[in-house]
């Protein structure tokens, strides 16, 4: 098999496996996997910018939240049905990402990190400032009866799982495809050497701009879906820690690999879930795990596998 065939098989295998799990997993893990697939979609969006393009953002929570609030506010106050609201959420995140890209891309490196962080902080405070509509930190609940698409009740565990699965599959295949075509190659080239890429005649800004917008749109789609599937919209999702999460997931799973974001989100979720059962000091365990990972598996889980055993891994 060629590398391309292998990677296609891998992606379809993962998607097929997750589909099969919908009918096998015990109730509790079934629910967890639905969450993890949405969070992994968020991480996939993050990976486009960080893993492939090499831009470290600490403000992705604003895109996640823009998707969530774009969807939630439209449903709550505009009475918009779920599916169009989902798209409104994605549009909101995309527009925000475009504006942020134009401004933040004037900076690079640590300054880019800080600028995105500050924009996200502004976003978080803005949500609090307009508390009359957003209900600030408390947020608001989307009632079960409005969370329906084409008569399918998204609060039903199986429907919800499959909806999350569709979202995840689309994001995974779309980004895998993107990295397979020339566009993705240019992104990687920018990550490796921006100057040289520019000298080769590529429009570096346009590519970086596109990367931020695509990344923001995917993060926004994940945010909108999370709100819709789990029925809650709140400012917590716009806070700093929700910007740090996708960075951790991607680094743990393997930055710049297609399946890394999923592995990272899965690993982190269960690490916290299991260790919180053992001790209330589960953040200590999470902290130790992070340190150990940097010491012994720097490239992340998928990254290590790629380095040691499977160089074809996309």
């Amino acid at each position, binding site marked *: 098999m060629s590398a391309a065939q292998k990677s296609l098989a891998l992606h379809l295998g993962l998607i097929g496996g997750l589909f099969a799990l919908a009918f096998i997993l015990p109730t509790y893990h079934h629910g967890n996997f639905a969450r993890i697939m949405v969070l992994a979609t968020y991480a996939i969006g993050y990976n486009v910018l960080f893993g492939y393009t090499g831009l470290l953002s600490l403000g992705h929570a604003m895109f996640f939240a823009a998707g969530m609030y774009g969807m939630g506010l439209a449903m709550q106050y505009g009475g918009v049905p779920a599916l169009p609201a989902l798209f409104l959420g994605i549009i909101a995140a995309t527009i925000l990402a475009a504006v942020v890209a134009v401004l933040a891309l004037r900076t690079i490196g*640590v300054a880019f990190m800080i600028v995105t*962080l500050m924009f996200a902080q*502004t976003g978080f405070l803005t949500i609090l*400032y307009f508390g009359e509509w957003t209900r600030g930190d408390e947020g608001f609940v989307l009632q079960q009866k409005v969370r329906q698409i084409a008569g399918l009740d998204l609060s039903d565990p199986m429907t919800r799982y499959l909806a999350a699965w569709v979202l995840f599959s689309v994001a995974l295949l779309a980004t895998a495809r993107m990295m397979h075509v020339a566009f993705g190659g240019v992104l990687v080239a920018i990550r490796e050497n921006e100057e040289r890429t520019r000298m080769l005649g590529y429009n570096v800004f346009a590519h970086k701009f596109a990367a931020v917008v695509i990344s923001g749109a995917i993060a926004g789609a994940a945010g909108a879906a999370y709100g819709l599937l789990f029925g809650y919209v709140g400012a917590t999702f716009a806070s700093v820690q929700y910007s740090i999460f996708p960075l951790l997931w991607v680094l743990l799973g393997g930055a710049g690999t297609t399946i890394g974001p999923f592995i990272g989100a899965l690993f982190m979720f269960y690490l916290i879930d299991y260790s919180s059962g053992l001790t209330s000091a589960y953040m200590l365990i999470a902290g130790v795990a992070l340190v150990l990972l940097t010491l012994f598996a*720097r490239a992340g889980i998928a990254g290590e596998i790629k380095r040691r055993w499977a160089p074809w891994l996309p």
Partner: protein
Amino acid sequence: MDFGPYLLLASLEGAVGAAVLALTAVGLSLVFGVMRVVNVAHGEFYMIGAVVAWFVATTVGTHPALGFVAALIVAPLVAAIIAIAADRLVLKRVNYDPEATIVATIGILYIIQQAALMGYGPEARPVEPPFNHRIALPWYDFAAGEWFYPWGLGTTSYKLFVIAVAIVLLLGFWALMTRTKVGLVMRATQLDWDMAQAFGIPVDRVYALVFGFGAALAALAAVLIVPIQQAHYLMGGDPLLLSFIVVIIGGLGSVRGTVVAAILIGMSDGIISVFFTPTLAKIIATMVVALVLVFRPQGLFGTKAA
């Protein structure tokens, strides 16, 4: 309150914030400048300073001033020892790789935070200031042509003390960096790692020293602020963000720039709050700083790109 006195009051408050911020940020700037390490756990060393100050102050229970002075010595030491251990055990082993150090220091952040929660608890606890007097400040009334004491215009002797101590410490730091051999070694390592090593500078030990020193500065800042604010295990987040902002705005590795940026940001936080409702003021202050960075990405004093 009238506009003039209000502005003075807000400026004074801003100055206290700026003083503490400058100390914290200089520590971060040093680590960043010399080691090229983004230390996400910097805020936790600040928190350690505050928590240790509480422990010391409650153990040395005779007079608040005694506990405070003891804390000024002990807290930075403890923070430095923990930082040096972190450097030896973790950062050195990942060869200070930029991405790896970010993740590792996030891990260290969680570890320190959780350890503080378990050992110290979730409460916010106060430390008694060594002295504290309310000082009413006068204002000149141009219409009446006389000085008077406006309602609410005042500060405390301790707050003025914080500003003074911060200035002394910063001058001391500047003297250390420019007038001593230790400072020379640090600056040499910052300028050119390879060259420094070629000249026989023990870069390893310099790194450990710098990391410990940076943490100690953060802890020192926290000891100063903890009689005004309280020690709490989650208190490290804000100073971390602000320090990062200050370090970038000031220009990477530029100590002078860092101090000026700390003053700008600390003061603007106070002064902008005069003109807007509080949350809107925060939004505007954050946005302004972000835009400064956007349009001057090398910082106010930096010469090279980040």
